[in-house]
């Protein structure tokens, strides 16, 4: 899709003309990420993270395919082959550190991408499908990352696999058969390792497929923007190429600088030393923690220490273990309902003074949850996790509907252009700069 003023693809070279007539792939690219895709002119750097997440996926697929060339998915040799890749394979250490830290960077940019969506109301109509598909990608990423972490078959790998598959054991009646079915045994072993490897190789390509749907759904209404005001005419947009290819290119540069610094100078900063000890089914590490990107959810899991039952009797309705598991899954499934929970018609947090405050409290809350999730299961962290978990659910189930009902939003600008120009008038002659877009520029080639 596009706006009516989108430029049309007209192949100049005879070869491209020939290709376009038979397979309109150049046309598809031109309309999707080229000059034929008009984008709001006022996107800020928070709009970089979608492209950066795509880049991170490419890094993961490339380094992952290389890792698979040197890996042996067998409990007897798995740990050894990863160490051998690190020590003996040419540039093997680089591939592994890039792949391990690449996962962390993928989650960093995806979390920023998600919080961008939360702040600017990107999940609201008409972009609900974009949000829902994004959550599907997030869930697939979590599954992929979890299974990938098991593959080196270190202590954290093994015990992580045991704890996470143990979550399914909490489901009444069918839980334990499901857990045994997932593992192919009564504890993680060769069967589990092999199937995790198989699925860890598969899922990134499933993610790539869902990303295509995510972008397709996005391109129906087009990108949102920091004002949340709809595009009203050609003066509100600039073409994706060269304006946002350049802006995303700059973001990619910053991303790769930070990535390289981590890979070369602090490759184990985000990992756990215990995972350099080979898996031992008879000894649990003193402090089992998942990778940092699961910490907020892990904190919610551990927040439930008391059975939910009828007071003053011994009748238990939901045991603590099941409560924790349900709450953890609910914390993500809840987000699928967000477009219908937040009923405020104003998208951008910039024009919602009350929402904005609660948004930042939520960010803080998730950071606190993350900190507790990475800490040992002892006081005061258990109590803090309980309060923070309760607040997390309250934010979505109580605060957001109430704010939507009672908040008085600030007046919205008449259009994107008006917002940009009035801002420019305060700060100086920004509208005069080349490349900022103008009333005539996007139209020039039409």
């Amino acid at each position: 899709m596009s706006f009516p003023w989108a430029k049309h693809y007209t192949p100049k070279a005879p070869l491209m003309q020939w290709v376009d007539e038979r397979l309109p792939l150049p046309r598809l690219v031109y309309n999707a990420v080229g000059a034929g895709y008009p984008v709001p002119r006022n996107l800020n750097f928070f709009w970089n993270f979608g492209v950066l997440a795509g880049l991170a996926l490419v890094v993961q697929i490339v380094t992952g395919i290389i890792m698979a060339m040197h890996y042996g998915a067998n409990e007897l040799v798995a740990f050894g082959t990863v160490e051998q890749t690190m020590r003996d394979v040419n540039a093997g250490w680089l591939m592994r550190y890039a792949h391990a830290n690449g996962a962390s960077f993928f989650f960093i940019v995806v979390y920023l991408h998600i919080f961008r969506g939360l702040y600017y109301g990107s999940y609201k109509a008409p972009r609900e499908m974009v949000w829902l598909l994004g959550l599907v990608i997030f869930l697939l990423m979590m599954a992929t990352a979890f299974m990938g972490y098991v593959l080196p078959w270190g202590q954290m790998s093994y015990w992580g696999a045991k704890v996470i598959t143990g979550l399914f054991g909490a489901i009444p009646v069918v839980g334990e058969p499901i857990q045994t079915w997932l593992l192919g045994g009564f504890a993680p072993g060769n069967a589990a390792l092999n199937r995790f490897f198989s699925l860890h190789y598969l899922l990134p390509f499933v993610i790539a497929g869902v990303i295509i749907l995510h972008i397709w759904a996005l391109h129906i209404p087009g990108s949102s923007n920091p004002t949340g005001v709809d595009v009203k005419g050609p003066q509100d947009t600039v073409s994706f190429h060269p304006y946002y290819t350049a802006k995303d290119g700059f973001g990619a540069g910053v991303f790769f600088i930070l990535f390289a610094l981590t890979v070369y100078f602090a490759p184990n900063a985000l990992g756990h030393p215990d995972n350099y000890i080979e898996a031992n089914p008879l000894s649990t590490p003193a402090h089992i923690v998942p990778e940092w990107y699961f910490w907020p959810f892990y904190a919610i899991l551990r927040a439930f220490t008391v059975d939910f039952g009828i007071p003053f009797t011994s009748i238990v309705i939901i045991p603590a273990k099941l409560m924790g598991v349900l709450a953890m899954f609910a914390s993500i499934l809840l987000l699928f309902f967000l477009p219908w929970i937040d009923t405020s018609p104003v998208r951008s947090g910039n024009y919602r003074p009350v929402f904005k405050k609660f948004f930042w409290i939520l960010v803080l809350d998730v950071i606190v949850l993350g900190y507790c999730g990475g800490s040992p299961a002892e006081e005061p962290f258990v109590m803090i996790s309980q309060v923070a978990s309760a607040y997390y659910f309250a934010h979505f189930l109580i605060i957001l509907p109430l704010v939507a009902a009672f908040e008085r939003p600030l007046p919205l600008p008449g259009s994107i252009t008006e917002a940009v120009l009035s801002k420019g008038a305060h700060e100086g002659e920004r509208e005069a700069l080349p490349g900022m877009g103008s009333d005539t520029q996007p139209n020039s080639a039409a």
Partner: protein
Amino acid sequence: MSTTEHTVGADGSDHGNGVRRRDFINIAAVSFAGVGGVVAVLPLIDQMNPSADVLAMATSEVDLSGIEPGQAIKTVFRSQPLFVRHLTPAEIATADKVDTSTLRDPQTLDQRTVDGKKQWLITMGVCTHLGCVPLGAGEGENRGEFGGYFCPCHGSSYDTAARIRKGPAPKNLEVPPYKYTSDTAILVG
């Protein structure tokens, strides 16, 4: 599948209620293919269940003679840890003193041990929360505030009868099936 259509169908077979022979054939064919599809998927799902070699029930023999009162050992049963603990009289007394109605998973020490062998507490070393190995079987390990076992993962504490007393675990440590083959040896499984 119009039910209001009473004209003779294209295939010439109208039974008066608008249901054509072709509708029946369609439904039958699709149902048959559906059942066939489900049957074909079953082995694809079933292959993920434990294979025969994993299921081959191993039994483990444990020699109790070297374990002093107060000591415990950690051994393996079906590739999972097994705790064998020789309780001291004081530990037995502590376990017996507890009012079982206050427990999350009410069981007495007698129910969890063999008659006349009350000092031998044999349990799986698998926390009933999420499957970590609790501490307390090894020398000098943290036994938690109830003197039994302590799971470091999420802080579940078990008492001297390996019953859950505090933390998120829902059940007592599992007592596997076992029998005494002699006065100082057991066969687990």
